[in-house]
């Protein structure tokens, strides 16, 4: 399956890129998605995750063509 990964704000800056793509076979949690594209960098503690623009926990399983987004706490308003 093919997953699109997006990064925002300070997380995007610290990774130096705004997106990744991941091709995979088998069960894959959001935590696994991060590992798959950031093998050397642990997932920051306070990061928020959305799949298809809805908030999910790190154990959430992704499916083909999902858009997974990682970002720091939001600061709008």
């Amino acid at each position, binding site marked *: 399956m093919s997953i699109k990964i*997006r990064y*925002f*704000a*300070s997380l995007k*800056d610290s990774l130096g890129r705004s997106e990744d793509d991941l091709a995979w076979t088998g069960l894959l949690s959001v935590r696994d998605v991060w590992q798959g594209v950031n093998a050397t960098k642990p997932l920051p503690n306070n990061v928020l995750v*959305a799949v298809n*623009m*809805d*908030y999910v926990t790190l154990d959430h399983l992704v499916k083909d063509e999902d858009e997974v*987004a990682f*970002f*720091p*706490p*939001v*600061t*709008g*308003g």
Partner: protein
Amino acid sequence: MAIMIRHAAFDPWQEIQQYQNLATSGYGATSIFIGTMRDFNDGDTVKAMTLEHYAGMTEKQLEKIVAEAKQQWAVLDALVVHRVGHILPNEPIVLVSVWTLHRGDAFDACRYIMEALKSHAPFWKKELLITDEERWVTHNTDGYKSS
């Protein structure tokens, strides 16, 4: 109900009036909140701000938040306008307006929408200081002066 993401400066009074004239009637109470960019934050002078957002998710989350408010309180109508992009001091960042029959519902729903927006809508502020240093705002306060 309307959710608007604005890439240029907006006039909150014009927004409310226009929307109210077009969409809203029969209300007895209106509760409005406006957040305005200040030129001072965390002890530093700020000369501009860039507001990044996650297009699509922003709208989706704001719609969800307004729907939640409508489930909890007797809301006749609601308008949310949020700025993104390059923002200067004294420019409005966010406008929430809620129309209801009675005041309690208006106050509660407006505040609920604002608090939920601040914790769940994917916006991020980056400040440009007077020193030309840029820094991400890392967290929201609880909304009170001493915090």
